[in-house]
Every structure is written in structure tokens, then in C-alpha cells.
């Protein structure tokens, strides 16, 4: 897999190299960080709008330092007129400042587009004693990348993503990499749900004609950018959900021909995916909250999820123009038992082995929120250093109270000039939660011929029913018997008000089943469907066929009744974590829930069999063919008794005379 990834990156680099004219300064290595990058961009802000820029030196340093190293080796490659040209950056680097200077440059802006960067960390102590940390980095750029005008100047927005969005006419892009399964029963709802493995869904602009071709290219390019196996996304695991994945940004395109959705449940997420993700941040991992993102700690956790969401958002409340929003989120849950110290306490240092010393200088806002809702009088845990700042936000249908640490204020860091919050638990462990909505999914039955997929959805609300959209994608090698589909709640048939089913085609596309269901209050709704396991061709098995084959998570999109009135206006002052899913009505909030992926064993031949078969067939052919050949070529004659002496002599004489013998 690693080798394959390297290949992908190589491929991408090759594409980049050949479509750019590259002049490399000898000191290109000095400009690898995002901070300096930005400065150079600022310095050249005036010259951005030159309509048709001639090939110019790319001296600013790309977003990804490993790429640069390759570029240096590639030396100068002449440009072809590729689509990449549209986003060239023109300019030279003339000044390198340290991080402190960057702050001063920040105020200089280009004439046409402004961008804004916010970072935020939410820490939610969980009743199980675990702790949940959710990072959000948001860059909003008042520009239209996909319009007619070519955009060639990048400041805070990562150029590698911008180019992708331009080239492939992407309207919205959501990609997540998750290692682990979110435990709703113990942890409640996450701020940004995501399924185990990799998930990618993209809305294309309605100008795209060949959506499938563009999707294929896009997945390959993203595979290179994120060092992931996204190139394994093909028609056999891509679907076009009709209702479950509406655009999260503004825009009224709802024709699902322009939507593509795919998951790779088997994808392993590790450092190699984290590094390119961090490189998209304006401050890299140099300053601000992102200094906490050290892989040795992030991957010593029970749950890890990182995501990138790109979508158009309203620039102003009237929504006259749109800007492009990039949200990078990273969620991580640390486990009390495996932290190894036995004490029931958490600090930034214990979680990330770093403390905070400054905000990202490029950020307009940099805050740390700690969820204090369950702890109004300090009876659950104590927090030090205490902060006077409290904030309230309506999140996931509940009003929550947060202690806020503003990193842009020097006072936050105190005399030690570093912030290391300490959270000490007082009470013992809590019980399991009863979240309003949770789900479960498993394969029933035994043997390798048939099976049954059960999906259970629990509505724990005492008196309110609410609608959910269930989306399941099942690979073609599990042949669903759709006539066995049953939906029951409380022992009665629950008739879905909307069903969208697309049958699979062998080796071409998966099953897609979407249902709109009403979950009665205080009930379990069970969806079952039987399937038959297909026998694959022997080249179609994975190298480890006895491990089993994955079926991706089902997606449950729900409008859950809210306890308090939701904020329907999207004011910019709301904390980032509360404004991810747009909220249309006060009485309920939108959330997504992912079920477990399934591991299904298919009938697998004994792969030592080829050896046996060769031996056996050789023997059979040799023995069978030999005897058959023998029978066919041998002539069988009835042996006549030898004639008497007189007859023999008579025959000799007759032969000499030329007469037929007796």
C-alpha cells in the first residue's frame, strides 16, 4: 500500500511539473512554510490581476515541501497550455520574516478578495472519563474559484486544493479519514460525524458534462494530495444518493446527477495522511492550535478522524455573493484506561504532549472551548486555570455552556507564557448514555451461502417521532434479495414513505438503497434484508481473502427533535463547531449517524488449490490420454489359428504362381 501511495504522489507531481513552467531558486528550501508563503503572496498582491500572465517563476514554494524536493530534481520543464495554468502564482519572494512579523503583514489585502482564518479547539469531557477534543480550522475566501475569471493568487487558502476545485469544477467537496468507530452510546453525538475509513462526497458544478470521468480524475488527484488510497474508488463503490447528501453550502442544485458518494471502509489512517492535511493549514504545524497535532499522541487514541470540507457560503446575510469556505476538522478521543497513569485527570500536555504558547498569527480568532455544561457547580471536575469567560451555544439540540480561552489575548497564557489546562475528575465513572438516536448493524446467520443484514435504529425520545433517511450501499458481491426487505417498529410493519433502490450490476456498480422512515417514539426500528454471497472469479479475491470483505457503513441522516430552540440565523459570531450543518428550523436539528461497517466472509477457494489442480490434471491427462490414444491407434484383430503345414506349402506355391492364397 505504501509503495502504491508513493506512486500516486509521484504521478501527481509529474502532472504538476509538466504543466508548469518552473524556475527554481537555489534557496527554495527556505520558503517551505505556509507563513512565509503568505508573505510573499502579500508582497505580490498588486500584480495578481494581470490578465494573462506569462510563465513566471514559482519561487514561492508550494504547499507541500516533499513536492518541492522533487521539483528541484525535475529542473525546468517547459509548460504546456494545461488547465493548471489558470492558478499560477506570479512573483518572487523577496522577504522572509519570522512568525512575529507575519502578524503585521496580515492587514494588507488584495483589492478583490479577502480571506479570513479562524481556529478553534473544543474539549468535551465525556462521562466515561474519556476526553474528546475537536479542532476546527476555517478559511473563508471571498472569491469564486469556478467563475470565468482566473484566480491565480492565493493567500491563506491552500493552493493545491484551490487548483483541484478549479480544474474539476467542484462545487462542494467533503472528505474524511477516520480510524475507529464513534461510540454514540458512551460519547454522545460528535460535532462532525464520519464513518470508519475514508469517505468522499462531491457535488460538481452543473457545467460539468462528463461527471464520471471528472470524478475518476478527481479521486486520483485527491489520492495524491492526501496520500490515501482514494484511487480505489471506482464505479463499483460509487453511488449517487438521491436524498441523503444534499449540499451543505448555498446553492440550489439538487440534481443528484452531479453528486458522487463513495466510502472506503478498509482505509487505514495514519501519519502519512495527517502530514498533508496539516500542510493545508496556513500556519502548518508551526504555531497556534496546530502545534498540538503531533502524530505520536493523536494516534495513541481511541478515535481519530480528520476531514476537509469545502463549500460555498454566503458572504453577507443577504447572500448576494458567495465565498468559498474551507473547514478542516480533526476529532480525537483519548481513553482514560490506556493513558497509563491511572489518575483521573486530563491536561493539554497529557493529551498532546505539548502546551499552547500562542495563537496562529494569521488567525483572526483563536479560541479554546471547554464544555462545562455537565459541571455547573464544579462537582464533576475542576478546571484550572479557571477562566472568567463563559459562552453559550446551541449545539446538537442542546444549550451548552463553555469556558473560553482566547489565545489572541496575552493574558490567557499567564506568567508561564504557556497554557496547559488541567481537568481533574472528582466523581466516579458514569453510565452509558441514552442518546436520542443511535444505531447498530450486523450480519446474521451462519454458513457461506446466505446471510441477513440487520440495521437497528433506536429512537429514545419519549414522545416524539422523527424522520430519518437511511442510505445503505452494499457491494455487488452480496446479492441482496430485495423482496425480503422488511422494516418493523414495535413489532409492526413500518412502511417507508420513500424508497429509492438501484440494483447492482456485477462488477460494475453496487446496490444503493435509500429509505425515508418515520421512527416512532421510544422504539427500535429494524431493517432486515437477506443476501446471497457471490462466488468471485479467482483473480478478484484480495490478497487476504480469508480476512473477509467490507461493506461500508450505512448512513442515517436524521432531523432529531431539539431540546431547545435552535439558532436558525448563521451569524458569524457563533463558534465554528455549532455552525457546521445548516439549520432551517428551530424545533429540530440535523445530524448524521454512521453505522458499523460489516466484515463478511465470502466462499473462498483454497488458494493452494492451483497446485493440486495442476498435479491432478497432469496425472489425469497423462493416464486418460495415454489409454485413449492406445485404444484409438491399436488395431484389434482376431488371431487365426496357424494353418497346417500342407496349407502353408500350398500357399507358398500359389504365391509364386500369382494366385490368391487359400
Amino acid at each position: 500500500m505504501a509503495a502504491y501511495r508513493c506512486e500516486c504522489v509521484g504521478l501527481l507531481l509529474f502532472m504538476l511539473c509538466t504543466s508548469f513552467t518552473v524556475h527554481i531558486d537555489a534557496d527554495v528550501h527556505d520558503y517551505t512554510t505556509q507563513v512565509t508563503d503568505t508573505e510573499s503572496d502579500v508582497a505580490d498582491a498588486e500584480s495578481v490581476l494581470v490578465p494573462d500572465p506569462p510563465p513566471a517563476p514559482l519561487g514561492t514554494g508550494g504547499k507541500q515541501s516533499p513536492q518541492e524536493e522533487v521539483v528541484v530534481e525535475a529542473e525546468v520543464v517547459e509548460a504546456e497550455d494545461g488547465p493548471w495554468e489558470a492558478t499560477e502564482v506570479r512573483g518572487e519572494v523577496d522577504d522572509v520574516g519570522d512568525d512575529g512579523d507575519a502578524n503585521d503583514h496580515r492587514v494588507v489585502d488584495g483589492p478583490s478578495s479577502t480571506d479570513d482564518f479562524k481556529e478553534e479547539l473544543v474539549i468535551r469531557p465525556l462521562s466515561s472519563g474519556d476526553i474528546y477534543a475537536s479542532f476546527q480550522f476555517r478559511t473563508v475566501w471571498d472569491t469564486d474559484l469556478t467563475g470565468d475569471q482566473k484566480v491565480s493568487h492565493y493567500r491563506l487558502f491552500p493552493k493545491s486544493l484551490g487548483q483541484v476545485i478549479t480544474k474539476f469544477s467542484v462545487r462542494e467537496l467533503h472528505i474524511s479519514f477516520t480510524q475507529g468507530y464513534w461510540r454514540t452510546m458512551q460519547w454522545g453525538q460528535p460535532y462532525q460525524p464520519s464513518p470508519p475509513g475514508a469517505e468522499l462526497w462531491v457535488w460538481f458544478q452543473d457545467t460539468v458534462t462528463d461527471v464520471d470521468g471528472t470524478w475518476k480524475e478527481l479521486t486520483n488527484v485527491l489520492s495524491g494530495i492526501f496520500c490515501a488510497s482514494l484511487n480505489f474508488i471506482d464505479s463499483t463503490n460509487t453511488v449517487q444518493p438521491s436524498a441523503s447528501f444534499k449540499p451543505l453550502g448555498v446553492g440550489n442544485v439538487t440534481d443528484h446527477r452531479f453528486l458522487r458518494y463513495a466510502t472506503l471502509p478498509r482505509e487505514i489512517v495514519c501519519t502519512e495522511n495527517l502530514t498533508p492535511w496539516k500542510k493545508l493549514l496556513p500556519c502548518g504545524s508551526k504555531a497556534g492550535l496546530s502545534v498540538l497535532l503531533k502524530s505520536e499522541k493523536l494516534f495513541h487514541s481511541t478515535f481519530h478522524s480528520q476531514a476537509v470540507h469545502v463549500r460555498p457560503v454566503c458572504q453577507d446575510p443577504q447572500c448576494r455573493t458567495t465565498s468559498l469556505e474551507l473547514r478542516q476538522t480533526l476529532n480525537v478521543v483519548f481513553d482514560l484506561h490506556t493513558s497509563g497513569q491511572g489518575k483521573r485527570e486530563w491536561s493539554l500536555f497529557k493529551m498532546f504532549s505539548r502546551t499552547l504558547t500562542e495563537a496562529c498569527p494569521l488567525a483572526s480568532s483563536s479560541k479554546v472551548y471547554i464544555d462545562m455544561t455537565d459541571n455547573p457547580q464544579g462537582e464533576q471536575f475542576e478546571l484550572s486555570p479557571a477562566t472568567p469567560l463563559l459562552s453559550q451555544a446551541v449545539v446538537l439540540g442542546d444549550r451548552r455552556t463553555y469556558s473560553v480561552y482566547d489565545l489572541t489575548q496575552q493574558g490567557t497564557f499567564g506568567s508561564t507564557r504557556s497554557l496547559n489546562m488541567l481537568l481533574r475528575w472528582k466523581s466516579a465513572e458514569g453510565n452509558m448514555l441514552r442518546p436520542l438516536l443511535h444505531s447498530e448493524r450486523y450480519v446474521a446467520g451462519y454458513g457461506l451461502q446466505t446471510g441477513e443484514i440487520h440495521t437497528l435504529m433506536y429512537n429514545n425520545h419519549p414522545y416524539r417521532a422523527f424522520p430519518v433517511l437511511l442510505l445503505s450501499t452494499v457491494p455487488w458481491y452480496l446479492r441482496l434479495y430485495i423482496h425480503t426487505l422488511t422494516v418493523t417498529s414495535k413489532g409492526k410493519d413500518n412502511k417507508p414513505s420513500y424508497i429509492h433502490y438501484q440494483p447492482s450490476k456485477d462488477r460494475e456498480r453496487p446496490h444503493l438503497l435509500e429509505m425515508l422512515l418515520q421512527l416512532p417514539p421510544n422504539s427500535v426500528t429494524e431493517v432486515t434484508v437477506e443476501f446471497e454471497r457471490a462466488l468471485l472469479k479467482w483473480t478478484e479475491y484480495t490478497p487476504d481473502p480469508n480476512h473477509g470483505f467490507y461493506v461500508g457503513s450505512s448512513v442515517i441522516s436524521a432531523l432529531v427533535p431539539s431540546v431547545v430552540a435552535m439558532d436558525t440565523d448563521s451569524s458569524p459570531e457563533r463558534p465554528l463547531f455549532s455552525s457546521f450543518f445548516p439549520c432551517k428550523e428551530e424545533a429540530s436539528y440535523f445530524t448524521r449517524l454512521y453505522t458499523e461497517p460489516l466484515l463478511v466472509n465470502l466462499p473462498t477457494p483454497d488458494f493452494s488449490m492451483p497446485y493440486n489442480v495442476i498435479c491432478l490434471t497432469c496425472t489425469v491427462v497423462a493416464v486418460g490420454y495415454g489409454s485413449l490414444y492406445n485404444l484409438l491407434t491399436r488395431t484389434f484383430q482376431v488371431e487365426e489359428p496357424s494353418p497346417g503345414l500342407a496349407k502353408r506349402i500350398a500357399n507358398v506355391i500359389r504365391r509364386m504362381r500369382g494366385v490368391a492364397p487359400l
Partner: protein
Amino acid sequence: MGLLSDPNRRRALIGMLTRLNAPICVVCYMAGVAWFMGLAFEPFTLRTYMSENAMGSTMVEEHFPAGERALDTGREFAAHKKKAGGMPVDWLVRTMQSRGLEVFTQRFSRKLPFPDENKERYMVKGTNVYGILRAPRAPRTEALVLSAPCSPGNDNNQAVGLLLGLAQYFRSQIYWAKDIIFLVNEHDLIGMQAWLEGYHHTNTTGMDWSPLQGRGGSIQAALCLELSSDVVTSLDLVLEGLNGQLPNLDLVNLFYAFCQKIGVLCTIQGKLPRNDWDTPWGYSHAAKTMLMMVLKQASGRPWGDHGLFLRYHIEAASIKGINSFRPYKTDATTVGRLMEGMYRKLNNLLERLHQSYFFYLMPSLSRFVSIGYYMPAFGLLAVILLLRPSSPGVLSILTPLVISHLTGVALYTLPILSQEIAVEHFPVSETEAVVLTAIAIYTAGLALPHNTHRLLSGEGTEQGWKVLKLVAVLYLAVLLGCTALINFSLGFILALTLVPLAAFITPHVHRTLAAFVMVVLSPGFTLLFAVYFFQDLQETPVSVQEGWMLFLSVISQGILDHALYGSLVYPLVALLVYPCWLLFWNILFWK
């Protein structure tokens, strides 16, 4: 093939086979038995080796420190068990929760078809408690199971204690890649059956259970722990599962490798390995070990709680702690370290255990006989059946076939159906009623077929019995062949007794003597002998009276196993083997 295409030589071959038919059959039979007995001879067997790369080359370290604390927990469990008079559900749930597991319970109930006198139960109600250790950063697709039974009396308290101790220790480790399910099952196999059926949402035996709330994906392997003393002298591995299924040999290898590494005495069939294979005593020891495995496997019943996992394609074995009078003892910490090592290696598995053998016999824990070695022994017996058919005729032999099978159906259904009537009319308990009805039908079958046959189809002809024999012999060959493929031991034992009578029975032999031999070689008597032989091998010989009682209880257990866990031996014998034997009985009394 030249041999067959040449008409002369073909004729000569057939001539030789017909002329020397009887001696060849005798030689084949002797060779088959000799071959089988030779399997236990050490130079003819293979040394076990680890086939699975994921478990072989990766070294793991064992650090489990808390054996004493685990024993304390076990004592606490015992006290709560006594107080609750059964499974201390609340205490277990609390304890597992405090160890950081996700805890769930499952209630189940089952009414047995007739009271089980061995275990004194009829209406069974119970609760299983299980806790899931969620592996960090794993998507709930794979799981391992560690189970310990909650037994009545003072049994297996230490096993539950060690299970909880291991749960606590495992929970603080970061390296798990598969969820680990810690299961405490009540009412041994019935609880296990309920849990497995609940987990896989199937219902094969008509048991009532409440659905499970938490799952960990597909289970890759399971170990069942039985431990009734604070210290053990040796650990015994039990492999034989339902219907004679065995776990993958790599699981055995794993256990053996860790016993060697940690220095724990380990046994199979409760017999310590010897290294004097070249002496008669060494050989007979190995032969006894193997024969015990054959008898246990042939019985088709699960010999430990692990036995029911095998149906679900989950490799499982039971580990029993044995405390004898040997001086050298192993403490709970060491047993815990052994379990830790095994789970860490199972955790490293990338695929299900599939590399090694599924069909094997074990003359000792370090030696095995694979299917390629033992099948010839069976083949030599089965070939006799193919050599013996006489020339075919045309007469209808439907009547004896149908009657024999109807008798079989009666044997299969009547004992349970008629237990109430029997209890009313005779002074016996339900269990006895069932068993005695079965024996009565079995014996009645001896009289039925040949009488009715005479009634229905009039006078038999010479041709008639030959056709019947042809059908019966081929029937037996197919039946034994299929049985031996699935459960070699059962197939071999049946072949050993049924083949000689099938080969030599005709209406023209000495009736009384032949009838006696046939009865002695009938499936029922085979079972009786097997009971005595098994007790002898276990070094607990029994008197005739005790043996008979044991025989009766074995029959009731067989019927119960079929009803409770879906064991197939009783229907196989009642519906197929016994009617087949009746056909031969028919031939003997052909008029």
C-alpha cells in the same frame, strides 16, 4: 490402462478378484485396522508446526501481573454467586463496568424435551453477562471471545476471577486491533447456545432468548476457560466440538507453543506426553490418547463450551485447569500470562485461522495425523463394500427398504413423543421412559422386518436377496463415505463394525451364530462397547452394572444434544445407520 483395454488381462483381473474375493476382503480389513493402529506410532506422524505467519514470527511479551488479585475477584464472585443462588448478574455488570467494558446481558429460557437427570435440569432459565473491550481505533468489525462458565457449586470461580483480571489488564493496553468479548455464560452449553444464536440472530433449536444489544463484528477465535483451583498442575486442551468438528490445528499449535514458552505442563485428553515412543508402553500411551480422541469425536457432542462456536466457523477450544497430586504447581499469574500471550497473537491475525489443518487426529499434543494419513485406513475398509456386490437382478426390494426406514423414523420420533404414555403406565421417570422406549423400538425392529417382509412380498427368491444385498452394500458405502468425510472417527468406528457383517452376510450362513454376531456388531452394541472402552481409556473402569447405567445416560444425552444444540449423531444413527443394518438383518432371514 493397458491393463483395462486388453480384454484378456481384464478378464484375468476380474477373475482374480472374484476368485480371491473373500481373502482380499479379509486382507483389506486387517490392513485397514493395522493402518489405523499404526497412526499412533510416532515415526509415522508429523510434528505440529505453526502455519499461520501472523502468529508465528511475531514475538509478543507477556506481562500479566495480577493473578492473586484475580483469585480474590474469583472468591468475591463465589460469595455473590452463593448469595444470589445462581448468576450474580448485578455484581458482574458492575464489576465489568468498573473495568471499563461495555456490558450487556442476555436472558434466555429453554424447556428440555425431557428432564436431564445428569445435570438435574428441565426448565432452564438464565442470564449471560458479557462485556466488550472496544479496541482503540478499530471499527468493530472483528472480535475475539474469552468465556468462562458460571457453574453451580464451587466450580470455575477461579476461571471467572481470571477472566475479570484479564479484562482489567487488557483494558489498559493500547495494542488491541480486535474487540475482545468477555463472556460469563450460565448453564454451560445451553447459555452458550443462547448467546451464539443471539449474536448471529439465528434460531436453530427453538430456544427463547432476548436479543443482544452490543456486538463486535465477526468473531475470529474463542477460548473457553475452566479453572476450579487456585493453582494448577497442568492445563488440558479440549478440541472436540459439535458433530465432531475440530478447530484449526493452528489454535492447538498456539496453545502448545505458549505452554512450551512459559513452561506450563500441557496435556490433551488429560494424558501427559511421553518421549519413549520406541517402547511398547510409549506406543500404547499414544494409541490410547488417539483412541480417546476418536471416541470423543465420534460421539459428536461438544466436549466443552467451545464446541458450539465451531458451527459458526469460529475457531475455538476449551482450556481446563487440572490440579492433581503432582508437586510442581502453576499459579494463576502464569495461567494469565499464557492467556495474554495467546490473545496477543490472535490479535495479530490478519485473516481467520485457515492455514493449517481442520481434519486431524492427535496422538499427543506435539504430534498430529492429517487427513491424508488416516483416510487410507478408512478407504481400505470401504473398498470391501465395493468388492462384495453380487450380480444384480430385477425383483422389487422396495418393501424391506421402506419398512426398515419406517422403523428408523419410529426410533427417531417415538421416544420423545411417547414419554408421557410410558410414564403413566410404567413406574419410571421421564428420562428412563425415553431411553427405554428407544431401546424397545430398537429391539422390536429386530423382529419386525423379516416377518413383515414375508407377509408382504411372499416368498423371497435367490435373486431377491442378492439385489437387496447389492443395494444395502452400496447404501452403506455411500453412508460411511460421507460420514467419514465430515467426522472421520464416527465413520471409522461404524465401518469397523458394519463392514464385516455387510461383507459376509447371506441367507445361507449358520443362522443362529450369524444372528448373534450381527446383534453384537449392531450400532447399539457398538455404543455400549464404546462406553466401556472409553471408561477404560480414561483409567476409570466401571462394572457391568455401572456401564449399563452409563449407556442409558449416554443415549439420553445423545437425544438431548440433538434437541438442544442440533447434534446430528442421533438422527444419523436412527434414520440411516440403523435402517441400513436392518437391511442386512433382512438378508440373513431371507426365506
